[in-house]
C-alpha cells in the first residue's frame, strides 16, 4: 500500500475541508483525484506531502507518517505543487542541478531533461519558458531523485492539449517503470486517459471510487440507442422493455434507456415478431463526464460550460 487514510479530517476554522476520508491506494498505479474546486483535493494531497497537518484521522504514505517521519518521506516522495514557483533567473539545467543537490541519490540532470523533453531548453532561463515547459520542468524537479511515489497537484491546469499530452507521456513512462502516481485534476479526459483508478471528491468526501470503466458502468444516466431496420417497425413494443422512443433521426429510431442490456435482449424478440431485420445499431453509453457531473452536481462542475449543457440535455 502506498497510501492509507483513515477517517481523515481537516477543518479550517468553521470550514470542513475534509470530512472523514477513508482510502487505501496500492502501489504501482496512476490514481486520479477528481472534483470541483473546494472539494478538498489539494488539502488532501498536501496532507499526504506533509505540508498540512490533519485535524484528526490517520495518514500513512509509503508506510510513513508525513508529520513525524517527514525526513524519510521527503527522500522517497516526488511532489509537484499546484502553483509552480521556481527561481526565475536560473536556467532549466541550473535549477535541476540545484534541486539534485538536496538529495543523496539522483538521476543525471541530462537524463531528466531528456525525460521531460527539455534538452533544447537546458540553457534557457526559467522566466523565458512557456507555461507547458515550466510545468514539465516542475515535473522534472519532482522526478530528479527517482521517487517511488509522485504526487502531482493539477499538473496540466491551464495547458493546451498538446502540452497536456506531452506531460501525460512523461507520467506514463514514469509509471511504466513501476512507480506510483497520484494526481489531482479537474479534466475528466485527463483522468480517463491517464488513470487506472479515479477517486471523485465533493465537499470533503469521496463520492465515487473505481476504474473509469467501473464508474461509467455505475452511472444512472441514460444510454441512447439508434436502431435501423429493413422494414416497418413499431417502436411501442420496445418501449414496453423500459425505453423511451424519441422518433426518427434519418432512418434510425432513437431510444433512451437506463438499462441498455435489457433493451438489447428485448430487441431480438421484437424484431423477430415483426419480421424485420436489424440493419444498424448504435449505442452511446454515459461517459465518465456524465457520471462525474451526476456525482458532483452540474452547477459545481468546472471546465467548459458546453459540456455541462450537453450533459443536462
Amino acid at each position: 500500500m502506498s497510501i492509507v487514510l483513515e477517517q481523515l479530517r481537516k477543518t479550517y476554522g468553521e470550514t470542513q475541508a475534509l470530512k472523514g476520508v477513508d482510502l487505501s491506494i496500492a502501489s504501482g498505479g496512476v490514481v486520479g483525484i477528481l472534483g470541483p474546486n473546494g472539494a478538498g483535493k489539494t488539502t488532501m494531497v498536501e496532507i499526504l506531502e506533509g505540508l498540512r497537518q490533519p485535524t484528526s484521522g490517520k495518514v500513512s504514505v509509503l508506510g510513513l507518517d508525513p508529520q513525524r517521519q517527514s525526513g524519510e518521506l521527503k527522500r522517497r516522495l516526488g511532489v509537484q505543487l499546484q502553483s509552480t514557483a521556481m527561481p526565475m533567473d536560473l536556467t532549466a539545467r541550473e535549477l535541476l542541478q540545484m534541486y539534485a543537490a538536496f538529495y543523496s541519490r539522483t538521476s543525471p540532470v541530462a537524463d531528466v531533461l531528456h525525460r521531460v523533453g527539455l534538452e533544447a531548453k537546458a540553457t534557457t532561463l526559467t522566466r523565458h519558458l512557456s507555461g507547458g515547459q515550466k510545468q514539465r520542468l516542475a515535473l522534472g524537479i519532482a522526478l530528479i531523485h527517482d521517487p517511488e511515489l509522485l504526487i502531482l497537484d493539477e499538473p496540466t491546469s491551464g495547458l493546451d492539449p498538446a502540452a497536456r499530452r506531452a506531460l501525460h507521456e512523461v507520467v506514463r513512462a514514469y509509471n511504466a517503470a513501476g512507480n506510483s502516481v497520484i494526481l489531482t485534476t479537474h479534466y475528466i479526459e485527463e483522468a480517463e486517459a491517464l488513470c487506472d483508478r479515479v477517486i471523485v471528491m465533493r465537499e470533503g468526501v469521496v463520492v465515487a471510487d473505481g476504474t473509469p470503466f467501473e464508474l461509467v458502468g455505475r452511472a444512472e444516466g441514460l444510454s441512447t440507442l439508434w436502431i435501423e431496420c429493413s422494414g416497418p417497425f413499431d417502436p411501442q413494443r420496445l418501449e414496453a422493455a423500459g425505453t423511451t422512443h424519441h422518433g426518427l433521426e434519418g432512418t434510425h429510431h432513437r431510444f433512451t434507456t437506463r438499462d441498455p442490456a435489457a433493451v438489447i435482449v428485448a430487441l431480438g424478440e421484437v424484431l423477430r415478431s415483426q419480421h424485420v431485420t436489424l440493419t444498424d445499431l448504435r449505442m452511446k453509453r454515459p461517459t465518465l463526464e456524465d457520471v462525474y457531473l451526476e456525482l458532483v452536481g452540474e452547477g459545481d462542475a468546472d471546465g467548459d460550460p458546453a459540456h455541462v449543457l450537453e450533459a443536462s440535455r
Partner: protein
Amino acid sequence: MSQFRAFTALYRGHLLAYKRTRTAIYWSLAFPLFFLLMFGFVFGHGNPDDTRFVMPGLFTITIISGSVFGVAMRIVTERESGILRRHRVTPVSAVAVVLAHGAMALTMLLASLALQLIVARLLFHFDLGAATPAFVVVLVLAGAALIPIGLIVGSVARDSRSAPAIANFLFFPLMFLSGSAIPFMMLPAWMQRIGRLVPTTYVNESLQGVAVRHQGLTQVAGPLAILALTSVIGITLNGLLFRWESTEPVRKDRLLIAVLGLGGIYVAAYFLAPALGMATFHPRS
C-alpha cells in the same frame, strides 16, 4: 554533509541569479559608491586625514543597508512566491536555506565594501597599510553579526510591504545612534548612552579603533566579542523564526525569545561598556 551540499547549491543559485539581475548589481555596488563619493567630498573634504576619520562611519552605513534591506526582502519574496514552499517538500533544511541567504548577503556586502575600499584608496588616499587585514576582519565580523538580523526581519515580516517598513524602522537608529552618520563624540551624552544599546555602535567603534586610533584587534576585542555573540545568537534565532510559508503564523513566543536574546546582549553591553572603555568619548587622534 548533504545539508552542506544543499547549502552550496542554494548559494550558487543565488549567485547565478544575482549575476543576471542588473538592478541588484546597481543597488549593491553603485549605491554604496555614491555614498562613498558623498562622504569623501562632503565630510572628508577630499583630503586624506579627514577622509580617514569619516570612512568607518561610511562602512558602517554600507554594512547596515547591505544586511537589513536586501536579505530581508529576498527571504520574503521567496516565501511569498512559493519557492520556499517548494523547497519544503524536499529534504533541504531550514538552516541550509537561511545560511545560503546569509552567505549570499555577506558576499554582496563584501563585494560592495571591497569596491568602496578600492575607490576610497584611489580617490581619497584612504590607505590603512598594515591595519588592512584587521580592518577586513572587523568588516566580515560586522556583516556576520548584522546579516542574521536582516534574516530575522525577513522571517518575521508579514509580507513584502512590511519588510521594508521594518528595515527602515531599524535603519535609522542603527545609523544615527551608532555615530556612523554623525560622529559619536558629537552626540549628546544621553544619545551616546542609548547608542551603547545598538549593535552598529560596536561596529563603528571597532572600525574607528583600527583605522583611526591604530589599535590592533586585541584592543578592540570587547566590541568584537559583542559582534561575535550577536552573530551566533542571531543565527540560532533564525532557526526558531524561519517560516516556509506566508500562511504560517509568526510564533509570538519565539519572537519574544528573539527580542530578549538579542536585547540581553546589548543590555549587558550597556552596563559593561564604560568598564571596558567601549562606546565612550574618544578624542580625535
